[in-house]
């Protein structure tokens, strides 16, 4: 406990300036938010200054959003689906996790193959270039019918995560320094060894970048994926449903939750990255 406190103090002291900047920017943002909401409502300090408040409910005060966030964890009544926020989070995390796992097992081998084999790239490239730009929202009606209520939303998130990982792994595999491969060949390494000892470690940083980007896009896709016809709610569903019933504090609370979950999952990805590097003896 003492060493933890000491480490934390040392961290705070050595990063005080950057922490102060972060705190200050957050405070400025919250202050601007408050002022904008007050302006729309003609509340202090804008009483008598602005026209009659209209459309004020769309921009609630930030503390009302935090209150709605807290309440959504404790009370299910009134929440879309009558589920607690924790249940919505669990549903979304389940979708993201399954979609992520599927993306990893498909995109990594495909990316390595297309990165190392020009023929494989020639086969796969037309499909990648055709399907990559299509927004996930466009797939919602088709995927719900083809893959049904459980797998349909997962398929949409999968599409969002798959392409960044595929393209980054391709790039990494293609960028392996030929000198390293020549050196390995000179030392008598076989193809399998070259792959596991040269190509794979070289591609790992690219893979990790793809994972970070893919997870971010996956969270962006969650709203489209959960908009309609999903099973078990979800944070994206909560945003959509709260919007159609004008429960704006709850809607913003769910949006904030997506941001927090994205940061947390990216943080977990970072920890996995550090572990992988350590396991590979790279750092």
């Amino acid at each position, binding site marked *: 406990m003492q060493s933890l406190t000491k480490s934390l103090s040392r961290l705070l002291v050595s990063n005080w300036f950057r922490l102060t900047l972060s705190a200050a920017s957050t405070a400025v943002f919250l202050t601007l938010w408050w002022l904008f909401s007050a302006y729309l409502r003609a509340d202090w300090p804008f009483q008598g200054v602005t026209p009659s408040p*209209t*459309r*004020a*409910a*769309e921009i609630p005060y930030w503390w009302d959003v935090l209150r709605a966030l807290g309440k959504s964890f404790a*009370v299910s*009544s*009134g929440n*879309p*689906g*009558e*589920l607690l926020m924790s*249940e919505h989070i669990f*549903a979304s995390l389940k979708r993201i996790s399954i979609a992520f796992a599927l993306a990893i097992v498909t995109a990594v081998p495909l990316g390595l193959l297309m990165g190392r084999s020009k023929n494989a790239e020639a086969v796969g490239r037309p499909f990648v270039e055709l399907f990559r730009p299509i927004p996930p929202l466009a797939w919602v*009606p088709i995927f*719900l*019918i083809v893959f*049904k*209520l459980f797998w349909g939303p997962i398929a949409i998130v999968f599409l969002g995560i798959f392409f960044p990982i595929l393209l980054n792994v391709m790039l990494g595999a293609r960028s392996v320094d030929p000198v390293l491969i020549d050196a390995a060949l000179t030392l008598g390494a076989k193809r399998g060894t070259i792959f596991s000892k040269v190509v794979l470690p070289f591609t790992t940083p690219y893979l990790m970048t793809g994972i970070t980007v893919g997870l971010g896009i996956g969270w962006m896709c969650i709203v489209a994926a959960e908009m*309609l*016809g*999903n*099973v*078990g*709610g979800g944070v994206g*569903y909560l945003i959509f*449903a709260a*919007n*159609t*019933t*004008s*429960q*704006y504090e709850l809607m913003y609370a769910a949006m904030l939750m997506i941001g927090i979950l994205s940061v947390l999952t990216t943080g977990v990805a970072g920890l996995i990255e550090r572990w992988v590097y350590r396991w590979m003896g790279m750092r």
Partner: protein
Amino acid sequence: MEKKLIIIAVVIAAIVVVGGLSAALLLGNGSKNGGTVYYVTLPPKDMKAALAGGTVDAYIAWEPYVSDSVVGDVGDVLEWSNQIMPNHPCCVVAVSSSFLNGPNGINLTERFLKAHIEANQWMVDALAHPSGANYTSLVDMAVQFTSRNATVVEAALEHVKYGYEMDQNFRNALKQFTDMYIDSNMTTATKLQDRGYSSTTDFINKYVNGSLLAEAASMTPSSAILNPSNPIRLGYLLGDLHQLAQVVAQNSTLVGGKSMFEEYGLNVKDATGAPFANGGSEMTLGFAGGTVDMGYLGAPPAILNHLNGAVNTVIVAQANSEGSGLVVKANSDIHDLADLVNKTVATPGESSIQFLLLKIALDKEGLDLKIKT
């Protein structure tokens, strides 16, 4: 010693009573004895395919999405909405408060309502004479509007009641919907008061404005268009047969080469974003977004979004009553509501009247309605 025994006995008794009450409370908060029916949200245009593909076991929607499945032998109607709640109001005409209070707003609104009244009267007359030319025209208009064939449209028209009046039954039903929303915490009494209403009765009395409809009856045609460069931006739902009145009022073949809107001096055009997927979207994207002046939509989403989102609108006329149905797969083993236990029903969304009607129907059977997990 005796005192101690008495104290121990009282403590044990208290624990038993409190424990028993807690257990009863916890167990009692579970699903009703009858069982649970599960729901998901789907747009009505996707419900037939979802039913046919086995994605859902049933769905509740407005016409023509009900008859679409029945005529196509995909589904059978388990219950019509008038069996759940006879003469229930469904779609209404709402006007944006900023439009109403704007230049010439009241006059334009009353003229719009006059055209709406005439369209309704024309439709009711056409439906009463199925062998007449007007009926054929009405079906043609509905076919174009809904992108469904004539057989589906004719079947659907049998179940929709068109009308424009807002009688006491209408107001009572809207009050019931508002109370249901407050009971389920989808809105609150606090928000009702924040909007300036003292009670749900007060809310309905003010939010439903019958005076404009009364004045509209005396409107006379106008030879000139009163808003040539500021058209009324009209909102409505995709393929919703309940809102056929606006299609009839915009048809230019019925009144000597001009539409009923033009007859009464109005320039009306589709709002940006129309047709909307559901009433909630029309309220939040349309009215709140400032792109809709007058719109046809379900009464419940109008109520909910006005109270929660301060979307400043007023209900000025009814558009239809009844005309929705709960559809199950054709030849399925679902013959009554109790057979829906542990099955999945698609609804247009929690703010829709269809969702409320499903809840009412299941409540009567002692069944719970929960989101599918």
